[in-house]
Each structure stands twice: as structure tokens, then as C-alpha cells.
């Protein structure tokens, strides 16, 4: 039982405590507002883009070729080129990035070379995409005389995305516990056998999620492609060219180009439609990445 004498200091302490608690509540409120505004921002952007572009997107819009001067053009070839360049880029990026990622994570010992690889990867990641695009211009377009090609764009994008995919690989590999590696090596497996048969299969879920997310970013890449893959598509049937040496304007580049050159009278309309299609593609990539990740990890630990 507390006497008055003992209760006095308790009351005083409670007054100070309420001041601290107010600061705590205020800060908590601010943080909550900041967080909610992020979600609201995203929802608002998505809703607005749908509002702008929903009326534009139609089957005709998605498949027809663009028109040079008149209204009513579509984005068919651009969508084709976006996927084509994505596929080509992944073809180069995945082996190199996974190879060096596996090397750095599993084989490399601290030293000059390892530091050099990490520094180069980090620097590649920080180079602005337009600067990388200029490098592509110097080497692929001018030096090698390819002019604007899908291959040149893909190689430039490979350089841009190597670091991201390397990080995905390293994080995926590190998600596999050491004890699993030890178990394999204690059975007489070599390092590569352990990686190939135990570590990589165990990391398949985070690896897949990461790769699909990077693919989504490649799909939306623009600055590096303007001066490497070009801002036009060939007219007529040759617009769906399978050769890697054709000029390949992607959807994102098209969005920028119609805005900046604006020769067609319905440039705004085409822009709205293109922006919406790009957004929807990003959403699809993100959802796919998560769904695949969850499916694969369930298969790994359940079946």
C-alpha cells in the first residue's frame, strides 16, 4: 500500500512521462502519415494512368504500326521490340551476372581482384543510363558501324543490369544456410557439385523472383536505348524483324519520342495509351515475380 509520501514522486514522474509519451505519439503519427502517403501516391498514380489511357488502349492500338504524320497509329511493333530486346538482354546478362555472382559469393577470397570486381559492379550500377547509352553509341553504333540495332541496345542494357542481377544471385545464394553446404561437402562432393546440386536448387525461389523483377526494369528502360536501338521502326511487314540488327524502337522510347517530336496530332493520346501499357506490364512483371517465388518455395519445402 503506497502512502502519500510514496505517491508524490510517482505523480511527478507520471507528468514527465506524459510529455515523453506525447513526443512518442507525435513522431509515430508523422511516420504513419509518411508511410500511408507512399501507398496513396502509388494508388493515385495507377488510377490516374488508367483514367488517362483506358480509352486509348484497344486491340488496334496494341497491334497496329505507328503512323508518321496522321493520327490513329498503334504501338504493335514497339511492343514486339520491347520484348525482343528484353529477351536478347537476358540472354547475355543472366549467364555473365550469375557466373560472376556465384564466383564472388562462393569462390572468391578477399584480395585485389575481388575488390576490383565489386568496385566495378558498384560503379556500373551508378553510371547514369544515358551515359551508358552514349557508350553504346560510341562502340556499337559508330565504331562497329552497326548503326541503330536491337543488338546494340541489348548489349548496352546488359552492361546496365549486370550489377542488379549479380546482387540477386549473391543474395539468393546467401539465403542457403552454411550447414546445407557442409552436409554436401561432408559427403565428398566438390564445391561445384555442391553449388549445382544443392545450393542453386535451394535458392531457386529468391533467384526467380529477382530475375523477373530485373526483367521488368529492363522492359521499361529508355535512356540507354534512344541512341543505341534507335527511335524508329521499319515500315510495313519488316517492322516485326527477327534480325538483331534492325532498328528497334521500344515502347518506352516511343513514348518519349512521340512526346518530344510530336509530329502526329494525337501524340497526347498515344502517350496516354503507351504509358498505361507500360504500367500494366510493370504490374504484371511484379505480380509474376511474387507468384513464381511463392510457388517455387512451396514446391521446395513441401513436396
Amino acid at each position, binding site marked *: 500500500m503506497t502512502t502519500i509520501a510514496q505517491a508524490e514522486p510517482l505523480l511527478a514522474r507520471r507528468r514527465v512521462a506524459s510529455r515523453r509519451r506525447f513526443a512518442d505519439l507525435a513522431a509515430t503519427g508523422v511516420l504513419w502519415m509518411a508511410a500511408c502517403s507512399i501507398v496513396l501516391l502509388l494508388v493515385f498514380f495507377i488510377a490516374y494512368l488508367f483514367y488517362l489511357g483506358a480509352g486509348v488502349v484497344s486491340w488496334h492500338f496494341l497491334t497496329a504500326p505507328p503512323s508518321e504524320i496522321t493520327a490513329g497509329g498503334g504501338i504493335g511493333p514497339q511492343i514486339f521490340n520491347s520484348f525482343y530486346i528484353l529477351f536478347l538482354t537476358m540472354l547475355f546478362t543472366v549467364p555473365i551476372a550469375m557466373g560472376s555472382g556465384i564466383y564472388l559469393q562462393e569462390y572468391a*577470397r578477399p584480395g585485389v581482384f575481388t575488390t576490383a570486381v565489386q568496385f566495378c559492379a558498384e560503379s556500373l550500377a551508378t553510371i547514369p543510363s544515358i551515359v551508358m547509352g552514349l557508350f553504346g553509341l560510341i562502340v556499337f553504333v559508330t565504331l562497329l558501324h552497326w548503326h541503330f540495332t536491337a543488338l546494340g541496345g541489348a548489349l548496352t542494357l546488359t552492361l546496365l543490369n549486370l550489377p542488379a542481377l549479380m546482387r540477386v544471385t549473391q543474395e539468393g545464394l546467401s539465403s542457403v*544456410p552454411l*550447414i*546445407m*553446404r*557442409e*552436409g*554436401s*561437402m*561432408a*559427403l*565428398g*562432393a*566438390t564445391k561445384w*557439385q555442391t553449388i549445382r*546440386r*544443392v545450393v542453386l*536448387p*535451394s535458392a531457386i525461389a529468391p533467384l526467380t523472383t529477382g530475375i523477373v523483377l530485373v526483367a521488368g526494369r529492363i522492359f521499361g528502360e529508355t535512356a540507354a536505348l534512344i541512341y543505341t536501338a534507335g527511335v524508329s521502326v521499319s515500315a510495313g511487314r519488316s517492322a516485326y524483324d527477327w534480325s538483331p540488327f534492325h532498328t528497334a524502337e521500344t515502347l518506352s522510347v516511343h513514348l518519349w519520342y512521340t512526346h518530344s517530336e510530336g509530329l502526329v496530332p494525337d501524340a497526347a493520346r498515344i502517350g496516354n495509351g503507351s504509358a498505361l501499357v507500360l504500367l500494366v506490364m510493370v504490374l504484371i512483371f511484379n505480380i509474376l515475380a511474387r507468384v513464381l517465388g511463392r510457388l517455387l518455395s512451396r514446391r*521446395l*519445402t*513441401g*513436396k
Partner: protein
Amino acid sequence: MISTTTNAAEPRLSSKMRVEDLDVYYGDFQAIKSASIEIPENCVTALIGPSGCGKSTFIRALNRMHDLSPNVRVEGTVSLDGEDIYARDVDPVSIRHRIGMVFQRANPFPKSIYENVVYGPKIHGLGKRAQLNEVCERSLRRAALWDEVKDRLHRSALDLSGGQQQRLCIARVLAVEPEVILMDEPASALDPIATSKIEDLISELKDEFTVVIVTHSMQQAARISEFTAFFLMGDLIEVGKTSDVFTKPKDTRTEDYITGRYG
């Protein structure tokens, strides 16, 4: 230092492995100081001692697991059938084919039970389905797990209970047909029933294999081993027949540990 007691009337045991002046360093810290011991063939040798005394470090030196850690240095000789496994021209990967290891926590791969057991043979080149099936059944039987899993060989190994997973890991090692099996506290994460199953298994295994087991339980050492080695702070204090070490220890430190004065 070795203090081994042998009774002249008993059959002479051949030495499967011999450790001479083993030192293990983690950076500058010396975890094992000049340990020498003989591991007799087809027996169970237990390594006991308080936590931190170095018994896990010691056993990992026996199949060159320390090769995987960059800042660990191993000096001395560890011989298998008379030949040093740390010699320059010896391949550590093949050593682990002949000296297998079971870990403290069961670490089955996230694959099916079947795939776990045949993993070892597969990486050593065995390919034929029929042969793999035979190895799988034989190893699971030897590990006393066959009856419990024979109907779900292709289900995930992670669905098994802790004790079953550990027996699966033992089956996995058996499938490789080693000569020596090292066990680092194999039952410390298991309940008493699962533990006694593992102990029964170990008693059967010694007919075909040489077993070295690290254990923090003196009772377990007394139950299943023929020889016991006592470690304290990196030093190998005493080695001998289990019955002798527990009833007439030669060193006072051994006696203090056995009677529970520390540890």
C-alpha cells in the same frame, strides 16, 4: 598426452586412424594443443569434455572440414590406415568419401528422401537407376529408417520429424560406404526416444564402421563407447577404455569432470 590402458589378455585392436601432435588455430587462438590419439577400428570412440573444450574442432580436423574455413590453420598428422590425410598430394574431397560426418543439427537437403540418400553415390558417379534404388534401400535399412519411409521415398525430406531427419542424414552418409563415421553430438537436438534410437543404431554400426562421436553427455559415452577421450580447454587430458576412464580416471581433472565438479 596419451594415457592408454590395455589389458594384455584382450585381443589387439588395430588402429584405423592415428592423430599425432594435432594443433588447430583460429587466427592466433590455439583451439587444439598437440593432441595425439589412436582411433581403434570397429569401435566407438567418444570425445567428452565441457563446452568450448575443442572436441568439435578436433573432430572436424579428422575429415578436413577446416579446409572450408579460410582463417583456420591445422598442423600435425592425421593418418588413415597409416597414410597422412593432410599430405600435399591428398585430395580432401576424396577423404570425405572414406570419412563421413553426421552433424549436430540434421541438415537434409530440400529434396525428396530418395534424392537425399542417393546424393552421395550420384556425385561419385553412380548412375544406374537400379543400383541407386538398391543403395537407397540398403542405406535406409541400415539406418533403421526404411520401414518408416519406404512408402514415401519421393516426398520431401523436410516433412520428417527431427529424429527421422537425423537418421536420414546417417543413411545419407552410409550410402557413400565410408570406413569411418564422425558424429558431432548427433542426438543433442533430439528427444529421449529419438536419442535412444540413434544410440541403438550406433551400437550396430560399429560392426562395419569405425565411429568417433562427440558427446556432451557422459552417460551417453558410457552407454555406447568402448573408448573415451577427455578434452579440456584444447588439451587432450586422458584417453582410455571407457570403463577405466569413468571408474578409475588417471588425471584429477578427468575425475573432477566425471564427478560433476564442472562442465
